[in-house]
């Protein structure tokens, strides 16, 4: 089935740059101020992905459990730092909490899929674990950012309501429970939306890539279903863990809402 692979030569690859050049020309003529970012972004894409390609070839050939586990942890570390940077409603959120949540959910889902669904012989089969962890992380990272950001924005906008509940004797958990639900919903919405429209509105990148690389579309679809479900599960698990780990940070040691989260009044 792989006989259907259409290789992309160096020349073909350079031709794809024409698309970016057209967008760059439009940007320059309309003075959108995006030309520099566009060129820089394109160069980074080439460099990062080529490096990744060579790295993957080496990692796949070594196939060491320490290397695979270490690389997944490094990916989690970078993803957690990125996740907390994308939270406009929070300042100084500890990346370590995002790291714990992402690492736990990524490991849980990746190894479940590797073992139970794909039935790999070894848990550290780099060719399977690395791409799966990458897809899981890419999506749960966004879910986590959205979830935690929503939690803080909800609490800020409804601080008066939370304080009223605390004044009546509610525990911090009782006072923010409904807002935690909102945060989880926000974190999971992109994954659930993807589940709703996949195959109708969107053809996911992984499946498209497999088909372009000559794989049987039926198998590509099966893999994509697994990926969609695991990504949703990872986003839910990561978001739930992060929200549970971080909600107490909204309160001081007396269980009162922190000063900086209080709104300016009704």
């Amino acid at each position, binding site marked *: 089935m792989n006989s259907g692979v259409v290789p992309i030569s160096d020349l073909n690859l350079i031709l794809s740059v024409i698309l970016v050049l057209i967008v760059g020309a439009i940007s320059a003529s309309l003075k959108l101020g995006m030309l520099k970012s566009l060129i820089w972004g394109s160069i980074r894409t080439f460099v990062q992905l080529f490096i990744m390609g060579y790295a993957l070839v080496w990692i796949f050939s070594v196939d060491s459990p320490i290397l695979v586990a270490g690389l997944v942890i490094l990916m989690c570390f970078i993803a957690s730092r990125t996740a907390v940077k994308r939270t406009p409603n929070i300042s100084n959120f500890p990346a370590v909490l995002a790291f714990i949540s992402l690492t736990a959910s990524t490991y849980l889902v990746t190894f479940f899929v590797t073992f139970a669904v794909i039935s790999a012989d070894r848990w550290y089969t780099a060719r399977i674990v690395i791409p799966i962890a990458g897809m899981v992380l890419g999506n749960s990272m966004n879910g986590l950012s959205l979830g935690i950001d929503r939690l803080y924005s909800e609490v800020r906008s*409804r601080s008066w309501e939370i304080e*009223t509940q*605390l*004044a*009546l*004797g*509610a525990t911090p958990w009782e006072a923010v429970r409904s807002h935690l639900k909102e945060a989880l919903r926000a974190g999971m919405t992109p994954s659930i939306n993807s589940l709703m429209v996949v195959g109708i509105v969107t053809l996911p990148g992984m499946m498209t890539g497999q088909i372009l690389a000559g794989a049987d579309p039926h198998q590509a679809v099966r893999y994509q279903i697994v990926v969609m479900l695991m990504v949703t599960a990872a986003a839910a698990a990561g978001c739930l863990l992060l929200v549970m780990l971080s909600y107490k940070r909204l309160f001081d040691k007396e*269980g*009162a809402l922190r000063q900086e989260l209080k709104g300016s009044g*009704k």
Partner: protein
Amino acid sequence: MFNDIVNSATELLSAIRLSFKLDSARLLEVSLQVNYSEIVILSGPSGSGKTTLLRTLARMHPRIEGIMKLEGKNCMEIPPVKWRRNISYLSQYPAMLPGTVYDNLFYPCTLAVSRTSDFNKQLAIDLMQELGIPGEFMLKDAAVLSGGEQARIALIRTLLAEPKIILADEITAPLDDKNAYAVVNLLNRWVKGCGLSVIVVAHSPERWEKVIDREYNIAEMTEGTE
């Protein structure tokens, strides 16, 4: 000696050299005592720290130093949640929780700290009527009530939580005279009949003057501590 015994028997809440930050530049230190069944008014100019003092007493604002005691028991021995249930801060902007008036009044019974989940609906209706809100409002969405109605429902919600002290922060501010006096009279009746105590902050102290037992002026209490 005899006076000491009497004081400790009647003392409900005491704060000894309680200090808290009013803002980044001002630190206040106060001492006060509230006895069973009394209404104490806290007076002082705007921005002098009355609201922050009430919130500190409710353990909703960080205290820097000092001791607070409830019925002779140090606040460090009482979990904050239980403390706040007993010393309930009632804001001039009480929030209505999502749901109906009934949901709001029932809310204190749903909390883990609640001694009982029995909701005295008849008492709630009686209190609503006493404060000029028809009993049928029970099934109304709380969000659509006027500011004055919300303030009265919030007071009833706090009374139904059965605190020992209510820290009433400008609670009659959104009310007209008639409803304000209904609130004052209701609270006075609970103070005299049920052993409740109230610390009041009010911009219109004349509404309270007939029921006040004592007055603390925050400017005098905090003299020299800023």
